[in-house]
């Protein structure tokens, strides 16, 4: 099976986020970056399918230069080769930064890079940890004219195509059968994620990493939906923060739970 996995580099979950001066995005300088976790699960599923059925795993990611480190990580974990859609934040030219595109624009870039590969299966994570749009996989399927499903925990290859396990709300699941080629948006938690081995990291350096300039893909920048401003959320409740040492805070909390909240 030839599988393309679309992955995104996002700010590391533990990295502190600060709103940039223009209030349109976060301050990216000195930020630490990581592979979007649902995408790591998509990669894991792809690698396991390849181990069972043979074939090739191609990693695809769009973004500026820094995205290369996340692509290398995917190659080190076992992907065979990679395509980097280079889209510099400050870059001149038709492409410009990814922020000039909405969800549809980004999916168009990815779709244009996927089409010449004619894969059997395209996997993405369900959502990104930064923008959280939850749409890339579904739009990709529409642009590529392929069937899709989302919130997938497990993929099984059948004679007719695929049988997947889809998560529903409140602890329910369903199976879905579909023909190949197809697009799946993977939910987290279906597999155990692997770590890159030392050997894998070494091998990654020799694997093909093809850079494609976003401007070459013929996708017009522009957006029907724009993020105009970001801000810190307003508190929904007035939270009493308890300070002091751990012991002082704990003692104060128990007192308040007894006398104020009356839940102890």
């Amino acid at each position, binding site marked *: 099976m030839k599988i393309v996995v679309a992955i995104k580099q996002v*700010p590391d*979950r533990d990295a*502190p*986020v600060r*709103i940039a001066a223009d209030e349109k995005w*976060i301050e990216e300088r000195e930020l630490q970056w990581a592979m979007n976790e649902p995408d790591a699960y998509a990669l894991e599923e792809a690698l396991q399918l390849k181990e069972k059925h043979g074939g090739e795993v191609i990693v695809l990611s769009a973004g500026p230069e820094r995205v290369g480190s996340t692509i290398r990580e995917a190659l080190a974990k076992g992907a065979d080769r990679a395509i980097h859609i280079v889209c510099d934040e400050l870059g001149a030219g038709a492409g410009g930064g990814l922020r000039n595109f909405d*969800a*549809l624009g980004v*999916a168009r870039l990815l779709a244009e890079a996927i089409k010449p590969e004619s894969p059997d299966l395209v996997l993405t994570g369900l959502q990104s940890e*930064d*923008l*959280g*749009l*939850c749409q890339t996989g*579904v739009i990709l399927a*529409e*642009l590529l004219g392929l*069937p*899709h*499903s*989302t*919130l997938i925990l497990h993929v099984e290859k059948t004679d007719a195509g695929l049988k997947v396990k889809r*998560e529903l*709300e*409140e*602890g*329910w*699941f*369903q*199976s*879905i059968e*579909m023909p190949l080629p197809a697009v799946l948006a993977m939910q*987290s*938690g279906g597999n*155990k994620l692997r770590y890159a081995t030392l050997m894998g990291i070494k091998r990654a350096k020799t694997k093909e990493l093809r850079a494609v300039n976003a401007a070459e893909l013929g996708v017009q920048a522009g957006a*029907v939906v*724009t*993020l*105009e*401003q970001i*801000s*810190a*959320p307003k*508190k929904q*409740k007035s*939270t*009493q*923060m*308890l*300070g002091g040492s*751990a*012991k002082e*805070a*704990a003692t104060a*909390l*128990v007192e*308040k*739970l007894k006398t104020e*909240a009356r*839940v102890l």
Partner: protein
Amino acid sequence: MSVLLVLEESGGKIKRASWEALAAAHRLAPAQEITAVVIGAETDALAAEAAAKPLGKVVRVEHPLLKTYTADGFSIALHQLIRNQSDTKWVVFPHTYQVRDYAPALACRMGEVLIGDVTGIEDGPVFTRQLMQGRLNGSYRHSGNGPCFVSVQAGAFRADSVETQVNAAPAPIELFTPALEPAQIRTAPSEPFRESAQTVDLGSAQRIVSVGRGIKGAENLPLIEALAGALGAELAASRPICDNGWMPMERQVGSSGQTVAPKLYVAVGISGAIQHLVGMKGSQCIVAINKDPDAPIFEVADYGIAGDLFEVVPALTEAVKAGR
């Protein structure tokens, strides 16, 4: 009619999240300009339920191939309906798992982009949605000819503002039959199933101690168990803990797990992504312990301790024991 509101049902009743989406639709247009859409193979009862709400009309999108949800069936049928109702400016949905599965494709079909998981609508209209796992808010605006597609986060708008109108005449109901062929539906879904019988009913627990990523490893769970023991509380967890197999799935609180509303909910090392918050924000008293003072969990907490859980939790266990 300027708003098409796509209602979702479960077990033959319109879901509460659909009425929250109606409340959101009221921010975009007067009730008379809202058309509610029910979709399926037999929709008469659903349509009657919707017609009693404050809205202009109800359209039944009905076809035998819409009996079970498929992304293809729903996208094709709703696309035909929207093209048929050419004065539609807004298409509004509840942000359910099902809507996430097809609404982005439906919007794409019309060259549009869904503004998903909206928590607020201000004048403009400017749509608010969460970024960075709830740590920031983003303000979004739509441009172009539209229609503009919007899905509404569960719990963000109040369903009780759109109560059934007892004395008013029901809204008129129309039937729309989409043209659908079996070959257009490329996926074959099974009946829903559960993995195993749920043996833990967190829904009836009075006190819950819930743990998240901050615990770092399964070997640290005894710390949390000790606190739960001292409080006489049930143990629960956020999704990543169950994904890692550190706690059974049936103890997961959140949109993909159980919804709880105990008297006391102690969230330890949980940042408070919306998927978790929807499962516990109805709790009577919420305590949050997290090292990041900006973690979104503190926005819903009554009491917060910004500190290292490895110091705070043992101290709290001792304080609870000492306070008896």
